[in-house]
């Protein structure tokens, strides 16, 4: 098959992949209710803020306040906290896996965004829906 036929076919396939991914993404976006699942258990943001200690982290684009992630994991019953890695997932499926050491420099804001003072912006997961203990 010559180039004149292949190129438009590939372009159509590309558009199909993009369109189907968009349909899939919109169909699987998790609801953004007030709850966050931590290690299999569901908690409201208000409850999370009532049990865990507050922390302010300073980054190169300002300071952010929220609940300390390491304390939150401890208070929600994670055993041997330093033995695990933690996968934080946002509403759109964006997830980042971090270490215990990173959690010690991280917070969860009221807007359900995680911010780490020792990690780049790419680790700021928005609309957090779950924190899994691996």
């Amino acid at each position, binding site marked *: 098959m010559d180039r004149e036929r292949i190129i438009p076919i590939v372009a159509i396939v590309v*558009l199909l992949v993009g369109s189907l991914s968009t349909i899939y993404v919109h169909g699987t976006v998790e609801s953004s209710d007030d709850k966050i699942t931590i290690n299999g258990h569901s908690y409201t943001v208000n409850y999370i803020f009532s049990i865990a200690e507050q922390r302010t982290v300073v980054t190169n684009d300002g300071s952010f306040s929220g609940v300390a992630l390491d304390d939150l994991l401890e208070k929600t019953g994670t055993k041997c906290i330093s033995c695990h890695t933690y996968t934080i997932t946002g509403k759109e499926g964006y997830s980042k896996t971090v270490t215990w050491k990173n959690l010690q420099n991280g917070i969860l804001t009221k807007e359900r965004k995680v911010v780490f003072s020792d990690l780049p912006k790419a680790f700021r997961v928005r609309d957090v829906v779950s924190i899994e203990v691996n």
Partner: protein
Amino acid sequence: MEKKRMIAGIILFGSIWGFSECIIGSYLRDAGLPAGAIMTAIFAIGLMTATRILYKQPGMQLGMGVVAGTLRLINPFTGCFICSAIAIMAEGAIFELMWYHMSRDLSEIKKLKLSISMGIISAYVLYVAGFIVTQITTPLLTSAGFHFSDLLSFLPQILSRGLLAALIGGITVPAVSALRNFDISSISAKRYYTTSTSIAALCWIVVILNTLFFLGA
């Protein structure tokens, strides 16, 4: 094509690309616009296609990616700038690979259907590949490390977001194709080198001043 003229072209267009990534990209992000798709489909694809048409020299776009990536490296904005620099360089290399089998005079893209198709494919692949490169390199350069499952779970989003880049790319390449009738070698050497050096220098100066301003703020 004179080699010296081509190198000046690489530096000029690579600098414009790097400048746009550092300065215009930041403004687009601050304005809440889809900066990644716009930067890839308009600036990266537009500039690389334009140089391919004007200079008819494969290999130039890889050089432009290196120049643009180097310029991005000195700009400390938006998180992992080393990762962004690597992604830009990767975009240059991927463009070279995709356009490798095209004829030197790009006679294929004279047809509207083919130029639209090449724009769609190039913009989509570049956007998705650039995104994946940053998703891998950013964690690798941190204490958190790279976890394949993180990339896999976000892959549908990346493939979805590339659709906008593909649609814009489908407009950019036919628009840039209009440059086909322009003969870059018709510009006198004096005028060509003076203009290209001045514009490239201006791009670097603005980015460096921007960096110094950021560090001093």
